[in-house]
C-alpha cells in the first residue's frame, strides 16, 4: 500500500501547495483582521475545502477519462463564457461572474484548464505537427477563442495569462525557432514602442537580425518583420484607443512615482509594505501597511505584501522558494510522463500557474504594471483557488499515470 502510494501519489506537489495554501490563509486572516472583512477569511476556508475535494477527485480520475472529456469540457466552458457575457454580474467594471447564492463563480478560471486540455488533445494528435502552418493556426484558434471572450468582459489580466501558456507549450512541442520568435516578436516590439521611439528602433533592429539568423524563407521572414514594425507603430494608436484606466496603468508602470495618489498608489504602497518589512518583518498582525489598510483589497491581488511586510525577507523568500519548487515540479512531471498528451497538459498547467505567479509577484514588487491577476493559492477568490487546486490535482494525476501512453 505504502509502496503503491509512493509510486502513484505525488506528495511533493501537494505538500508544496498545502504550504502555500496555509501561507495564503494566514495572510488573508491578517489582511482582513482589521478591515471588517472577516467574511472573506471564512469564505476562503470553505473554498479551500472545496478545492481540496476537487484536487483529490481530479488526481484520482482515470487518466483516459481526462483525455476523453477534454473537448466537451472546452466547449462547455466556452459556452459558459458566452453566457456570462450575456447574463453575468458586473463587478468593478467587468462582467465575469455568475451569482450562486452567497458565492460567485468565475467561468474564465476553469476555462484556463479546459483550454489546456483541448490544446494538449489537439497537439498530441499524430497528424498534427508544429512545423505545419495549418496546425499552428488551429492551435492558435483554440487559444484565441476564449482569449477573445475574456477580453470582452473585459478581463485583460486573465487574457494575458491565457496567452502566457502558448509560448511554453509551443516550445515544449518542438516548434521552430522562427515560429517561437514570430510569436513573441510583435509583443516585444509593442512593449518597446510604449517606452519610446529609441527603444523601439533598437528592438526592431535586434528582432530583424534574429529573424534573419533563423534562415527562414525570406518572404515569410519579411512578412513577420513587417508585422513587428506595424505592431510597434500602431501601439500608439491602440494606446489612444485604450480605456483611461488602462492607459493610466501603463503610464504608471513606466513611472509609478508620477502619480503616487492615483494609479501609482497601489504600487507605491505595495513597495512600501514589502520594503518596510526588512529582514525579519514587523511580526504577524503587526504590519502597519496591512493592518491599517493602506493597500485596497489587499487580500486579492496584493496578498504577497502580507508575508513581505509581516515576515520580511524571510517570509517573502520562503514564498518565492515554494513557488519555484512548484513550477519546477510541474516541469519535472512534464518531462517524465510518457504520454504526449500528458506532457502537453503538464507544461500547459505549469505555464498558467507560472504566468500568474510572475505577473502577480512582479507587480507587487513594482517590476511590472498593475495587472489584475491573482496569486495562486494565496489570493482570495473561490473560483481561482478551486481552479488552481484542480490544476495541482491534474499534475498529480499525470504523475500517477506517468507510465501510460
Amino acid at each position, binding site marked *: 500500500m505504502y509502496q503503491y502510494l509512493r509510486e502513484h501519489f505525488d506528495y511533493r506537489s501537494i505538500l508544496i501547495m498545502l504550504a502555500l495554501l496555509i501561507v495564503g490563509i494566514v495572510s488573508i486572516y491578517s489582511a482582513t483582521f482589521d478591515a471588517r472583512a472577516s467574511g472573506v477569511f471564512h469564505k476562503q476556508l470553505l473554498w479551500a475545502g472545496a478545492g481540496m475535494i476537487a484536487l483529490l477527485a481530479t488526481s484520482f480520475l482515470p487518466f483516459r477519462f481526462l483525455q476523453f472529456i477534454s473537448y466537451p469540457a472546452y466547449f462547455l466552458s466556452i459556452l459558459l463564457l458566452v453566457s456570462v457575457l450575456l447574463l453575468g454580474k458586473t463587478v468593478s467594471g467587468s462582467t465575469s461572474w455568475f451569482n450562486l447564492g452567497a458565492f460567485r463563480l468565475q467561468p474564465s478560471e476553469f476555462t484556463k484548464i479546459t483550454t489546456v486540455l483541448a490544446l494538449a488533445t489537439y497537439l498530441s494528435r*499524430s497528424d498534427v505537427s508544429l512545423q505545419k502552418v495549418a496546425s499552428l493556426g488551429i492551435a492558435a484558434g483554440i487559444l484565441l477563442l476564449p482569449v477573445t471572450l475574456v477580453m470582452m468582459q473585459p478581463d485583460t489580466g486573465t487574457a494575458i495569462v491565457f496567452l502566457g501558456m502558448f509560448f511554453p507549450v509551443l516550445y515544449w512541442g518542438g516548434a521552430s525557432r522562427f515560429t517561437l520568435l514570430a510569436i513573441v516578436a510583435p509583443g516585444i516590439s509593442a512593449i518597446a514602442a510604449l517606452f519610446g521611439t529609441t527603444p523601439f528602433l533598437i528592438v526592431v533592429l535586434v528582432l530583424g537580425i534574429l529573424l534573419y539568423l533563423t534562415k527562414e524563407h525570406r518572404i515569410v521572414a519579411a512578412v513577420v518583420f513587417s508585422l513587428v514594425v506595424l505592431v510597434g507603430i500602431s501601439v500608439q494608436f491602440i494606446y489612444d484607443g485604450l480605456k483611461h484606466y488602462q492607459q493610466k496603468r501603463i503610464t504608471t508602470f513606466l513611472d509609478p512615482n508620477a502619480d503616487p495618489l492615483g494609479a501609482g498608489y497601489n504600487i507605491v504602497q505595495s513597495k512600501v509594505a*514589502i520594503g*518596510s*518589512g526588512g529582514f525579519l518583518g514587523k511580526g504577524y498582525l503587526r504590519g502597519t501597511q496591512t493592518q*491599517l489598510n*493602506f493597500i485596497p483589497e489587499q487580500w486579492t491581488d496584493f496578498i504577497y505584501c502580507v508575508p513581505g511586510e509581516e515576515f520580511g525577507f524571510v517570509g517573502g523568500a520562503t514564498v518565492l522558494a515554494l513557488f519555484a519548487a512548484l*513550477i519546477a515540479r510541474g*516541469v519535472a512531471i512534464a518531462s517524465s510522463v510518457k504520454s504526449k498528451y500528458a506532457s502537453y497538459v503538464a507544461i500547459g498547467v505549469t505555464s498558467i500557474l507560472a504566468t500568474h505567479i510572475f505577473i502577480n509577484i512582479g507587480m507587487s514588487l513594482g*517590476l511590472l504594471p498593475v495587472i489584475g491577476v491573482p496569486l495562486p493559492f494565496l489570493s482570495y477568490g473561490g473560483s481561482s483557488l478551486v481552479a488552481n487546486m484542480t490544476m495541482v490535482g491534474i499534475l498529480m494525476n499525470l504523475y500517477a499515470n506517468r507510465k501510460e501512453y
Partner: protein
Amino acid sequence: MALQDDIQIYQKRRVLYAVIAMMFLLFLSRLVQLQMIYGEEYGRKSEENSIRTIPKEPVRGNMYDRTGRLVVDNRPAFSVTIMPFEFDKQNVNYLAALLSLDRDFILDRLRKGESYSRFVPVKIKRDIDFKTLSALEENRDRLPGVDYQLETKRSYTSNANAAHILGYTKEISESQMNKLGGAYSQGDVVGSSGLEAGYEDKLRGQKGAEYSTVNVRGQVVGSFESGKLDVPPVDGNSLILTMDFGLQAFAESLMTGHRGALVALDPQDGGILALVSKPDYNLSLFSGVTRPELWRSLNFDEAAPLFNRATLTRYPPGSTFKMILAIAALENKIVTPSWRVNCGGSFRLGDKVFKDMHVHGTVDMITAIQKSCNVYFYQLMLKTGLDNWSNIAEEFGFGKLTGIDINEENPGLLPSTSFMNRRYGPSGWTRGFLPSLGIGQGELGVTPLQMACYAMVLGNRGDYHQPHAVEAIIDQQRKVADTLLYQSRTIPLSPESWEVVREGMRRVVEVPGGTGGMAKIPGIESAGKTGTAQNPHGPDHAWFVGFAPFAHPKIAVAVLVENAGFGGSFAAPIAGKVMEQYLRESTSPRSPLPAKGVYSDRAVAHLTEGQN
C-alpha cells in the same frame, strides 16, 4: 514522449529550469533591494503613512512686574488648520468664504505645508471668533481635513500700555522664519518687538508632539506605541521685570497728548522702572490676528506710534549735557569750580554770535549749571577742547549702545576729533563748531534711555549699571527663578567733580533761580537739569534729566517732550511727578528672589565686547 528524443526533452527541461531560476533570482534580488538595501527608507515611509504627528503648542511665558503683579499672560484662542492630504482642493472657495480669507492665500499656505509633509496640519487662520468656530463645526462633514486647534494668545492684564517695552507677538513672517530657523513653522507666533522679541527664546518654550496611528482614511485608530514616544510641550519661561506697572501707567498718563519719551531707572541696579514712548498703541490689537488695515494704519501714521522713541530717537540733549563739559573741564584741570565768566547774554566767536536766554552776570560753575548759562559753557568748551569733552561723554555711555534687553536701540552720535575729520576733512571744520556742542546742541545725538543712564550715574556718583527690564527668568522646568546679572562699572572721577555737578543739579531744582524748579518734590530733596534741544524743523524739544532723593537716589529719570519748547516748563514737571509718585507710592515690597544669579545673554555679550 514517444515521438521525441529523450535528449531533446532533457535539454528543454534544462532551459526551462534555467528560465525559472532566472525569474526567481530576479525576484529574490528585488526583495534584497527593497527590504535590505532600502528597508530603512521604506520603514520610514510606512511610518509616515501610518503615524500622524500632531504638534502641541507650548504656552508662552508670562511676565510679572517687580511687585509680582501679572502683566502679560495668555488666553485661549482657536486656530483653523488643514491636513493637506485630506483636504479636497475643490472646497477651497467654500472654506475661503467661511473664514473670510483669500483663496489664493489658503492654497499658498497649503502648498508650502505640503512641500514639508502632507501629514502635518497647516495653520491657516489664528484666533477665529465664536461665530466662525460654530460655522466650521456645522460644516465639518463638508470640509474633510479642516480642523481647529486650541492655542493661546497674549493677554495684557495691567492698565498700562507699555507697548514699546513689552513688544508685540505676531504670526511669523517668511523672512523671520528664514532667520530663526527650524523650530518654527507657518502660522506660529513669534515675539516681534520689545521684550517679546528680546527674550523670544526664553518665552517661547518648546513644541511637543503627539503621535497617533491612523488608518488609510486618516482616522485615528489609537495612540502610537501607547503614547510612549509623545513629547509633551515645554511651556515657555516667565519673566520677572524690573518695571513697576503702577508707575508705568502713571507716567503714561502724564505723557498722554505729547509726543516724546520717558525712561525711569532704579539707579541701584539699572533696572527700568518705567519706559514710555508716546504716541503708543494697544498691544491687545496684536494679540490675535493682526488685521492688515490696522497694521497699515499704525505703520503709516505720521506720529509713528510703533517707533520706540525711548530707545531709538536721536536728538541733541541740549543743556542737560552741560554736566559732561563741567566734568571734562574739572577732570582735565582746565578750570577750577570757582572759575568765573561774566555773562552778557551772548558770546561772540569771530563773526559768529552765540546767544543765551538771559543775562546771567558773573557766574561760577555751580551757578552756571543752576541757571543754565550758555555763555559760561561756550567759553568752557573752547578751553576744554573737543576730545576731552568727548572722552568723558563716552565714559558715560554716549555714542554707543547701552545693551538694554530689547532689540530696538540706537547708539546715538558723539562727535570727536577723528569723527569730525572723517566727516568734514581735517580742514573742513573749525573751533566754531565747539560752542554749540558745549551746550548740547549741534551734531550730537542721544536717546532718552542714554539720558536716563546719565542721570543714574550722576545720582550714583559714578556707578553705571547696564539698563535692563528683566530681573529674573522663572525656569519652567526647574521651577526656580534665575536672577539675571548685568554689567556694572564705576566711572572713576575725583569726588570734587561729582560734588560740583551734583550741587549744581540740586540747585536747578531746589534753589530759586534754578531752571528746573517745576520738578521739585515737596519734602524730598532732588536734583536735575533742564534742556531745550534746538529743532530746525519746528518748535524745540524739551528735556529733563534728574534723580531723587538727592543723597541716595532711588529713581533716575529722563523725559523728552517733542516740540514742546522750554525743558524747564514741559519736561521738568513730568519728571518731578514721576519721581514723587515712585518715592511715595512704591512701598510694596519686591518679590523675593534667590540671590544666585546667571549672567544675562546681553551682559555676557557686553562683557566680551569690552574685552576686544
